Structures are given as structure tokens and as C-alpha cells.
């Protein structure tokens, strides 16, 4: 899936006047997972936003292959998918519409059958036609995950993907992550829970 390495070189970030972290270096090769851990407020989310090109680091640079992440051919979004704290769902649209539109925005020709199958595998069968407003927190998170997993991106950046999920869905997500690694995808993940993922896992401790 991915044919390039994802590298961070000497990253540093600040919030206000406080240095969050300094000199973060890592290289992620296809098929590898990086788990970022650390206390609350140590800069996990800031790091993930920098890695996905949404924020600029105070120092250092993120590379996709040899290109800086902001100037990748075809845009940052063509190589990575990002799931932040917010689910990025439109409350007035149904789960299915949300995913189809996100697929269209990504430049794909989204397949309705695949969307329904993905929603069903995340335990949302029967909820496709309901405006997202009427779903619970956990269900909204699942819709956001379904959207992310349906976009064929080489690198997935997941910020607390397990938040508000129940045990069954955590299992589904874990197998989706393992499948992604097997396809030579890359994953950067933050979580407070222990994850036992089969694959080439690396750890990065912040703070």
C-alpha cells in the first residue's frame, strides 16, 4: 500500500510559552504502527496534528518519503487519514450520507454497498438512515471510524480512537488495524488503553 517511509525529524511544539516536547525523531516504514503515550497535556494531540500537517511545528519537519508533508503531490490528504477528538460528522445528515459525502470529497467514487457493509460490521446496521443527531456518542464515533476505514489512505493517524467504544467494536477496530498493517499501511495512534495488536508495533513516550 505505502511505498514510502514516514519520518519526523527533530520536532518541537509549544503551547503558550510552554515547550511541550523537543527533538522528536522517528521513522515509520510500511507495515509499522507507532503508539504515542504519555500523561494528559503532554502534547499527544499536538504531535498528531503536526504529523498530519494541520499545525506547524516550532522546529523540525515531517516527511512523507522525501517530501515535506505540507507539499506532498496531490495534497496532504492524499496520503493520510486523520481522526481527531471531533468526529467531523454533520448532525443533520444520516450516517450513510456523511460517509458518502466524505468519500466524494476525498475524490473517490464511494460505493454504497461497501458503506452499508462497513456500518454493519461496526454494529450500526439499522441506523444508516437516522440523522447522526439521534445517535449516541459511541455510535457517532463508530460512524467516524467507518468513514476513516473506507478511505484508502496509506497512513492513518488516530487520536484516541477507542474513546467511547464498547468491547465488541474495539475488537472490530483492532482487526481493522491489523488488516491495515498487513496491507503495508502505517498507523500512528494515541490511546490510554493497552492495545495488543499483532504486528510491527513501536512506542513513543512523551513527557
Amino acid at each position, binding site marked *: 500500500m505505502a511505498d514510502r517511509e514516514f519520518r519526523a525529524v527533530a520536532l518541537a511544539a509549544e503551547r503558550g510559552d510552554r515547550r511541550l516536547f523537543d527533538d522528536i525523531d522517528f521513522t515509520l516504514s510500511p507495515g509499522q504502527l507507532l503508539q504515542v503515550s504519555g500523561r494528559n497535556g503532554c502534547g499527544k494531540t499536538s504531535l498528531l496534528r503536526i504529523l498530519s500537517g*494541520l499545525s506547524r511545528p516550532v522546529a523540525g519537519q515531517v516527511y512523507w518519503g522525501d517530501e515535506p508533508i505540507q507539499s506532498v503531490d496531490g495534497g*496532504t*490528504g492524499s496520503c493520510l*487519514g486523520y481522526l481527531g477528538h471531533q468526529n467531523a460528522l454533520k*448532525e443533520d*445528515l444520516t450516517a450513510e450520507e456523511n460517509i458518502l*459525502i466524505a468519500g*466524494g*470529497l*476525498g475524490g473517490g467514487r464511494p460505493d454504497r454497498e461497501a458503506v452499508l457493509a462497513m456500518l454493519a460490521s461496526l454494529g450500526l446496521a439499522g441506523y444508516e438512515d437516522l440523522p447522526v443527531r439521534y445517535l449516541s456518542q459511541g455510535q457517532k464515533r463508530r460512524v467516524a471510524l467507518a468513514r476513516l476505514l473506507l478511505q484508502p489512505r496509506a497512513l492513518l493517524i488516530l487520536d484516541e480512537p477507542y474513546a467511547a467504544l464498547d468491547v465488541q467494536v474495539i475488537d472490530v477496530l483492532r482487526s481493522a488495524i491489523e488488516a491495515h498493517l498487513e496491507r503495508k499501511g502505517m498507523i500512528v495512534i494515541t490511546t490510554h488503553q493497552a492495545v495488543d495488536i499483532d504486528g510491527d508495533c513501536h512506542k513513543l513516550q512523551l513527557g
Partner: protein
Amino acid sequence: MFRPLLALLRRDLTLALRRPQDALTVVGFFVVVVALFPLGIGPDPEFLRSLAPGVLWVAALLAVMLSLERLFSDDYRDGTLEQMLLVPEPLGLLVLTKIFAHWLITGLPLVLISPLLAVQLNLRPDEILILMAALLLGTPILSLIGAIGAALTLGLRGGGVLIALLILPLYAPPLILGAGAVDAVMHGASAQAHLSLLGAMMVFALFATPWATAAAVRIMLD
């Protein structure tokens, strides 16, 4: 390359249809403000006629202003704006698409309802035609310039008031040209100069403002 833009346009229009009150408030505001003027300044038809271009244009400015705060703030709050930065399309084009949707939802209805209000203010048919042409050229400028203000005030408390302070001074040129076009016809002159300048301004805004807005969005989301 146009598929993502079409998807975004369709999304914004669908959302507007699911929540028609947002668009209707803008039109309602426009109608009420214009309708209040005759009550305040008396029913003398000739006097109303001489005030009509200015009244209609200022009411249109304020109505568009009212709708600007929501242009990006909804997407900002639920995180879809952040995802939009990751769409493999130039952000300027996405922003332009959103502005176009905004104009279809708020600006175009104002153009379409303006003849009714113009009749109320005693404008003649040929003046009404020029008024509509001027609004058709002018309201996109209002949306385009306003988008910069909407982006710069993302996530700020009291953003609505701040937008007004930032943007209303920039609305002076379209106001002068738009109201001037109708005034010119009233006094027997041609409105062509005003309309041409308004058109030129729209083309310039069309090319320049989406990139400024995109830069502002990036900064506010950093």
C-alpha cells in the same frame, strides 16, 4: 477534480434544505428592515423613491452580514473544517465552493425578493431591473469579502460583532456602486458605468478573496 467540489456543494445545499430556517431568517430580516422604513419616514411616494436604492442596499448588506457568522463556524465546531484541510484539493477552491453555496442560499433569495420590496418603495420597472442586476453582481461580492471576516473570527467569542466591524467598511464600494447604479437610472443617466465597475469588482473578488480566506482558515485552525 470537480467531483469533490460538487460533493461539497451538494452537502451544503442539502444541509440548508434540512434547516430552512437559517436561509429564511436572512430573507425575513431583509424584508422587515425595508418594510420598516416607510413606517418611520412617512408615506410620501416621491421621498420613498429617492431613498429606495440606499435603503435596499443597506438592508441587503446587513442581511448578508447576519448570515456570515455561520459560513464556517458550524464546520469548525463539528470538526468537518479540519477534515476539509485534508481533502486532496486546493483549499481555496473548497472555500470558493462554500462561498458559492452561501450565495445560493442567502444572496440569490435577496435578489429574487428585491422587486417586491422595490415596488413597495415606489421604484419604476426599469429601475427595478437595474436594481436586480446590481444586486446580482453585488451580492456575490458581499459573500466573497465577508468570507474573509468569517474565517478570521473562527472560534472567537463575539465573532458576529467582530465580523461586522471588520467587514462593513469593506462593503462601502459595492454599496456606493450598487445604489449609484439605480440612482443613475432615476436621474435619466445610464447605469452602465456603475454596473461595469461592480462586475469588475466581482471578478477581482472572485480571484483574490478565496485564497485570503483559505489562508485565514489555515491560521485559525493551526
